[in-house]
């Protein structure tokens, strides 16, 4: 499935037909696109504007109005002192928990995915293809089927509700996509290269570390983008497996907003929502086309 946006194809299409610039149909195209873009930007705008208004202004009900009194207080409240239940340490607790979950989970799932992909495309041990097929099907199994038995297994080895536990869970659930990603990438590397390395006496691990891994940088970047955003945005697995001391940012955000009683402090809530989205959005805006490549190649995403 080659779904990358090839620049070469675009250039050739742009070369001809530069004519009809301002015909009525062009006007229609642009109005549609601009209206659609405004609709897509609206929630981001609402979040930003709400997060810098004092509560009295919010109570007026002018959702789209710019703030009359600009304030950054909600942002510092959200970061430092927003409450979940009785804990008022702000969303930063969840932020650091998420960092501690995302970093090892990403590293482990990429390492295992790369080794799997390498073994499957070059060594092809007999019968391994069957396991790979089941693994890919596993990407479509609803989490609910697997969650409870996994809780039991992790609990029996005392890893339930712990940081290593949630890291293992993310590694397991990320394995289908990571393996597929690397397998397809290695399938594009000429087999002659591998054979030459074999003739020169390279073993399984030596060829992997000295030849394949240095060549894998582009796909490692794609895999990182994919895993960082996926794991950061996960809610369900963090809720079940992380345990109260390691709750990821998404879970804490939901707890701050949906389980507090009394008047909702919308500006703090929106600031906390933006803060929670900052990491994946930054990854997205910085990585651009690589992000698209990631979601295209991870099309079996579970």
């Amino acid at each position, binding site marked *: 499935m080659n779904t990358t946006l090839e620049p070469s194809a675009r250039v050739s299409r742009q070369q001809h037909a530069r004519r009809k610039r301002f015909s009525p149909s062009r006007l229609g195209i642009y109005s549609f696109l601009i209206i659609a*873009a405004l609709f897509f930007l609206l929630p981001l705008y*609402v979040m930003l504007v709400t997060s810098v208004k004092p509560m009295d202004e919010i109570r007026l009900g002018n959702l789209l109005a710019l703030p009359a009194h600009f304030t950054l207080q909600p942002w510092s409240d959200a970061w430092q002192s927003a409450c979940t239940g009785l804990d008022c340490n702000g969303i930063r607790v969840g932020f650091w928990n998420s960092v501690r979950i995302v970093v090892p989970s990403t590293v482990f799932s990429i390492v295992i995915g790369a080794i799997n992909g390498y073994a499957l495309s070059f*060594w092809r041990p007999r019968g391994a293809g069957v*396991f790979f097929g089941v693994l890919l099907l596993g990407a479509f199994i609803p989490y609910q*089927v697997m969650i409870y038995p996994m809780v039991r297994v992790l609990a029996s080895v005392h890893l339930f509700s712990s940081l290593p536990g949630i890291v293992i869970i993310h590694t397991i659930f990320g394995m289908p996509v990571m393996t597929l990603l690397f397998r397809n990438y290695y399938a594009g590397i000429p087999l002659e290269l591998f054979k030459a390395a*074999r*003739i020169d006496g390279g073993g399984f691990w*030596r060829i992997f570390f000295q030849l394949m891994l240095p060549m894998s940088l582009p796909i490692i970047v794609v895999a990182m983008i994919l895993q960082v955003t996926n794991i950061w945005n*996960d809610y369900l697995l963090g809720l079940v497996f992380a345990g109260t001391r390691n709750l990821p940012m998404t879970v804490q955000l*939901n707890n701050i907003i949906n389980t507090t009683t009394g008047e909702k402090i919308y500006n703090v809530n929106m600031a906390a929502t933006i803060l929670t989205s900052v990491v994946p959005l930054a990854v997205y805006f910085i990585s651009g086309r690589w992000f698209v490549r990631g979601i295209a190649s991870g099309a079996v995403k579970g």
Partner: protein
Amino acid sequence: MGTLKSHALPPEMTASRRPVAARRGRPLRKRWSLAAWVALIPMMVTVVFAYLGTMLWTARVSLSNSRTFPSNDFVGFTQYVRLFHNDRWLVSLQHIAVYGVCFIVACLVIGMLLAIFIDQRVMAEGVLRTVFLYPYAMSFVATGLVWQWILNPELGAQSLLHKMGFTHARFDWIVDQDFVIYTIVIATVWQASGLVMAVMLAGLRGIDDELWKAARIDGIPRWRVYMSIVIPMLGPSVSTAFVLLFVAVVKLFDAVVAMTQGGPGTASEVPAKFIMDYLFGRANIGLASAASIVLLATVLAILAPFLYARSRSASRKEV
């Protein structure tokens, strides 16, 4: 060739080398597969225990009378019968059906339109693409919370409409039992239609320019070319998008929890949330397992033809 070193392996394994010209070097691989097997142990353990094992376990528990803890008795399909007499489950199924149809159709239509319009060699294409796809980088929780705020009946869009002079305008879907499910459709379509756009755009870019030249020579209007030729040619992209969206429908949980918590009442309950509630809140593992097996069977039944078609076309390419 003479520089062959035999490290870490007994000589008999490296001694017999046949010409490597053979397709994909079969003889070499066969003798060396031990290290590869060892390297694949994590994958095999995951497949056997985490995927197959848990499935079998859940299937077994769904045939027992388990409550808080799994029990070993065997009660046949009692839990399934109970499940389909459970009002909350039936209502969840209804909601997910309505949601699924609306969500998938809306995403496909909007995503396709965006892709086609972007493909008209517009200015600032990169900016537009970025704008349409950014919601996909956000979590469902964040998406749900933003839309919960926008659709807030007292201070959100409804009050804005009142301020603009439409004093009797009603837009309180999020607290309306009959409409709440559509608010979840709106929020998730906002998030996911950019993904469809990206998939479709890639498909459109793969279409040969000659087609457009031929159509122009024959004087066929553009919209007609799209309707009759281009969109049918995008079949593979549409099926990829469909699979992605379908998986998202079955998994729908985060957005509901963040936006409505299944309410008002049970008006936005969905199967994934039903299962989580019965697993952890209501401690009825037997019933929850039965529900998740039903979910799994539905997924496999609907996705099987797509996956089969895809794996066939993939294996054809390989040959």
